[in-house]
C-alpha cells in the first residue's frame, strides 16, 4: 500500500518538475515561480522515489541512547 503511494508521489512530482523546467525554459512570468516549484517538488520526488524502491519499511528500533 505504502509502496504504491510513494510511486504515485514520485511520478506526480516528476511530472511537476518536468513541467516547471519547461516553464522556466520558455521564461514564463513570474520567472521565480517555476524555480520555487522545483525547489519544493525536487526533495519530495527524490525521497519518494528512494522510499518506493528501498528494501522495506518496518517499525522503528531503539538506537543506543548512551550509558
Amino acid at each position, binding site marked *: 500500500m505504502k509502496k504504491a503511494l510513494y510511486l504515485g508521489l514520485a511520478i506526480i512530482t516528476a511530472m511537476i*518538475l*518536468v513541467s*516547471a*523546467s519547461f516553464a*522556466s525554459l520558455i521564461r514564463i512570468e513570474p520567472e521565480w515561480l*517555476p*524555480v520555487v516549484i*522545483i*525547489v*519544493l517538488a*525536487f*526533495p*519530495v520526488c*527524490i*525521497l519518494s*522515489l*528512494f*522510499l518506493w*524502491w*528501498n*528494501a*522495506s*519499511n*518496518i*517499525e*522503528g*528500533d*531503539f*538506537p*543506543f*541512547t*548512551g550509558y
Partner: protein
Amino acid sequence: MIFELIPAIFAGLLFHGIHRKVIARIQGRPGPPVWQEILHTLKFSFKQTWIPKTASMPMFVFIVAASIAIWTGAFALVISGGSLLLLFAIFMLHKITEHGLGLSSGSPYGKFGAIRSVMSAASEIPLFATIAGIYVVTGSLIISDITEYQAIHGPLIISAFPLAAAMYIVILSKMHYGPFSIIEAKEIVSGNRTEHFGVWRAGLEVAYALKTFVLLLAFVLLFIGALPWWLVFVIMLILLISLSFICAFTPMLSPFDAVAMQTVITGIIAVYIVVIGVIR
C-alpha cells in the same frame, strides 16, 4: 533547470569520490574507485529504512527534505547569477538543518554533532567577510554583475586574493574529512548523521553533493569569472584536489581550535576590508 540539476548531483557525488581517492592515495592507501559515492548513494537508497523510536518523526524526515531543497535553491541561485546575500541566507539555513539533523534523532552522538554545528557557526563568518569585501571591491552583490566586473577588470582571485582565501576556507570547512569537520568527527560515530541511514542518508548524500558542486561553482564564478562550462569544470576539479590535499595532510582540529582559527581568519579579512575601504 531539472536537466542541469541531475548532472550537478552526479558531478557532486563524483567530486566526493575523487576527494576520497586523492586523500587515500596521499595516505598510501589504494582508496575506493572515484564513482564510489554514486554507488554509495544508490546503496543507501535500496537499504531497509525506518525511523528510530527515539526520533522526532516529522523533524527527522523533514530535515532531509529541507537539506535537499535549500541546496536545490542555492544551485538555481548560482546558475541564474542571483544575489550573494541569498547565498549567505542559504548557508544560515544549512547551519539550521545541520543542527536539526542531530537533534531530531534522539541519539547522544547526533546531539553532540548538533551542538558542534552551533559551535562551528564561526565557519560561516569568513563567508560574510567575503561578501562584504566583494561589495567593497565590485560595488555589487549580484553574481552576474561580479562576473561582468571580472570580464573588465580581471579575476578577483588576483586583485582581491584575501577574499578568495576566506571563501576557500569556507569551502574547506564544509568538506568531508577536513580539519574543520568536527560535526561529523568519528569519535562521535558520524555526528549529526549517525541515525540517518537508508533512504534518509541517501537523501543527505544528494543534498551534500549539490552543496559541494554549488560551493565550487560559486568560487569559480566569484573569483575567476564566467568561462566555458568545461573550463569551469576543470577549475572546480583543481580546486577540489587542492582541498583534498589539505584534508589529507591536516588532522582534524579540536572544536575550540576550529572556531578560534576561523575567527582569526575573519579578523584578518575584516582588517583587509577596512584597509581597501579606506584606500578606495
